[in-house]
């Protein structure tokens, strides 16, 4: 069907021409958890009482203030976020009780409520242009997330949406699209970093009547949530990327496989696909060309290994999601034996940008071998957690200290000394330390130091995090997610986990360490898919950079970071004045005593959670 994008754009602009102000409430998962939907409800109900002429999600009638929800804006820790346009005000940690004041002061007038603004040290930041977290980024993929209403296809179209798909369907040949992608240097954002254009071209030349495209939205890496944000915040960009892929390789059917834990992303993607189908952007003869494409959304069922492409394909076919040996690669024989191009969410979101603005423009960002920008999810012990987008080639230091604001200690004081390590690339990645702070982030440079970009999860660890425990944590994860097909992965991860548990619980000997290292190398060699091949990375990289911490656990039976609970003890010293606060705070009632006398901890009952130490006002509780 031929769709006139210009008319939709014009009609959309027309319907909004009387809107003077727009309030955008972030409705990403993080802000929703902090209560942004309450803020939204209150906004709509109160505004009627105090006479703001509002109107929600734009229906037929025209009013002069528009309230809408948006996808994730990335500044999750300070949510719920509320934007007021055109002034560009960004309010953080907004509560329903603040809404009335916001409407009266900032919507009816132009006054700024400083209390709700983000404060950078002593400076009041009015909006995104003042907040270092945003100004030090380069948001291209995320630009639309947090502005456009993800549930309104017309707004996506009005912001140049589906133009690239139309261009690809009508003006470009299959080969031209592949060539443009190869020229752009775009590499897969899911972890392996394979050149997207080459993958497409290889699928394109396969001689088959039926081909498929798949979007891999099974983002399972703990600590990574960029794909979730794009699916929630700008689902149409993914559909557009898929249409272009399907044209490039000659496929007429596709799947979007979304992780079941992401319920909001599932429903947003389903709505977006339905809207695109209703309007005629998906279906037969797209934009009046001879290209037809239908798209299904499939919800996963909770298996990390399904992020691996052959396992994901098995899962769509209704089987156990177990990887199969390559070759044949999916480009040759994928879904139901047909050539299949399978791409990650973020990769696909880059595609319309490349087609619209050209490969040369795209290459302006990034390094020679890693073109463009990358979204990283930065979490753990940093001041500002959230999603950031920077060009490849940015240094680690810039990301952690300038954008994320540095590493606070237990009392919230910032210092470079608090930084201990950063885990990059989830359970398949490695740890980097202080000596790597100046390393530039791109696919190749990280590999040289034993880490990888992976999906882009950054978990920052402070000096209070035990690296052995971190390695154990990842091993627990891979062990439980191993599908069981390869013996070395199935049994090896279990044995490594048992050894790491021995180390953290004080039962290990020096032999344990050498055995652990030997096994780690063997598992990497003897496994079929990426899960097993990279399962040892956290162990190997922590052994490499934090050997002394392992030694302390093994030889001195001590955990220097004070995290391994079996090696810890809490005691109440004679500083105790007997206020009884710790006893009331203790979740397992392990503390008892008489008021005004020194309290005691019942050691067998104690779960070593540390609540007592945190609550004591007299520093009378020590950890040893």
């Amino acid at each position: 069907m031929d769709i006139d994008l210009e008319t939709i754009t014009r009609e959309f602009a027309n319907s909004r021409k009387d809107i003077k102000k727009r309030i955008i409430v972030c409705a990403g998962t993080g802000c929703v958890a902090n209560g942004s939907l309450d803020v939204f409800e209150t906004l709509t109900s109160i505004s009627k009482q105090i006479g703001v002429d509002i109107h929600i999600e734009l229906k037929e009638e025209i009013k002069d203030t528009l309230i809408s929800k948006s996808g994730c804006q990335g500044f999750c820790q300070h949510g719920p976020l509320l934007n007021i346009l055109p002034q560009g005000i960004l309010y953080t940690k907004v509560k329903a009780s603040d809404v009335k004041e916001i409407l009266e002061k900032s919507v009816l007038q132009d006054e700024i409520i400083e209390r709700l603004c983000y404060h950078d040290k002593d400076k009041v930041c009015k909006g995104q242009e003042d907040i270092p977290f945003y100004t030090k980024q380069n948001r291209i993929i995320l630009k639309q997330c947090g502005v456009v209403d993800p549930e309104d296809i017309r707004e996506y179209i009005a912001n140049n949406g589906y133009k690239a798909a139309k261009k690809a369907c009508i003006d470009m040949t299959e080969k031209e699209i592949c060539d443009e992608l190869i020229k752009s240097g775009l590499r897969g954002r899911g972890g392996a970093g394979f050149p997207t254009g080459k993958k497409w071209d290889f699928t394109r030349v396969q001689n088959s009547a039926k081909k498929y495209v798949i979007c891999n939205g099974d983002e399972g890496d703990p600590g990574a949530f960029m794909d979730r944000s794009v699916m929630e915040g700008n689902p149409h960009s993914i559909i557009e990327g898929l249409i272009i892929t399907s044209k490039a390789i000659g496929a007429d059917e596709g799947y979007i496989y979304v992780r079941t834990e992401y319920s909001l992303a599932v429903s947003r993607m389903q709505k977006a696909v339905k809207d695109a189908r209703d309007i005629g952007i998906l279906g037969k003869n797209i934009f009046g060309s001879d290209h037809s494409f239908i798209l299904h959304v499939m919800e996963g069922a909770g298996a990390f290994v399904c992020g691996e492409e052959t396992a994901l394909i098995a899962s769509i076919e209704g089987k156990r999601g177990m990887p199969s040996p390559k070759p044949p690669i999916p480009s040759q024989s994928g879904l139901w034996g047909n050539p299949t191009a399978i791409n990650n969410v973020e990769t696909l979101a880059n595609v319309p940008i490349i087609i619209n603005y050209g490969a040369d423009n795209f290459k302006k960002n990034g390094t020679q071998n890693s073109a463009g920008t990358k979204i990283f999810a930065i979490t753990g012990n940093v001041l500002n957690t959230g999603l950031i987008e920077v060009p490849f080639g940015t240094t680690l230091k810039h990301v952690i200290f300038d954008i994320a604001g540095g590493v606070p200690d237990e009392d919230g004081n910032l210092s470079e000394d608090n930084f201990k390590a950063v885990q990059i690339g989830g359970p398949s990645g490695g740890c980097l330390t202080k000596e790597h702070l100046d390393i530039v982030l791109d696919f190749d440079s990280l590999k040289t130091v034993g880490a990888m970009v992976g999906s882009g999860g950054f978990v920052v660890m402070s000096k209070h995090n035990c690296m052995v425990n971190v390695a154990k944590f990842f091993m627990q994860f891979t062990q439980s997610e191993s599908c069981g097909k390869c013996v070395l992965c199935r049994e090896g991860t279990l044995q490594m986990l048992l050894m790491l548990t021995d180390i953290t619980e004080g039962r290990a000997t020096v032999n344990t360490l050498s055995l652990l290292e030997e096994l780690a190398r063997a598992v990497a060699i003897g496994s079929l898919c990426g899960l097993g091949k990279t399962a040892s990375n956290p162990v190997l990289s922590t052994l490499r950079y934090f050997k002394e911490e392992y030694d302390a656990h093994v030889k001195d039976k001590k955990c220097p970071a004070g995290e391994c609970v079996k090696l810890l003890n809490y005691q109440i010293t004679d500083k105790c004045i007997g206020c009884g606060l710790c006893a009331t705070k203790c979740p397992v009632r392990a503390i008892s005593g008489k008021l005004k006398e020194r309290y005691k901890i019942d050691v067998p009952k104690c779960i070593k959670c540390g609540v007592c130490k945190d609550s004591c006002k007299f520093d009378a509780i020590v950890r040893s």
Partner: protein
Amino acid sequence: MKSNYEKFKSVCSILEKYSFDKSKLIPILQATQEEYKYLPQEVLTFISSALNISPANVYGVATFYSHFSLIPKGKHIIRVCDGTACHVKKSESIIEALRKKLNLNNSQTTTKDMLFTLETVSCLGTCGLSPAVVLDGKVYGQMTPSKAIALIDQIKE
């Protein structure tokens, strides 16, 4: 007790909705679990006969994915996120505290009175709010052991 007809009526309409297509086994199991709250053994056998695949095949898929449960779950489901970000912010102490509070040992996940099921998830993607706990679908961010226990107490009241 429900008659057999009543019991299998819902799974029949689910199977019809997916036109008895084997390749739709996962969506079928998802819809079945939604309906029955877990996957009862007799329903799994029923599905395998209806799709003309072996019960072992259906069982294999049902046990492979963590989303599926072959045993009934409690009335309230508590899911503690133990993803990396939550883990470094001490989610373990929350799990421990909840286990003690609910009298669960390591292998149990559901309380005897069938009121609570305690699960861990590898990552909810709400790392900005770590550590996170999901109680009956609602996410609670920046949790502590005592806050988690307060949540349980609130429900019990």
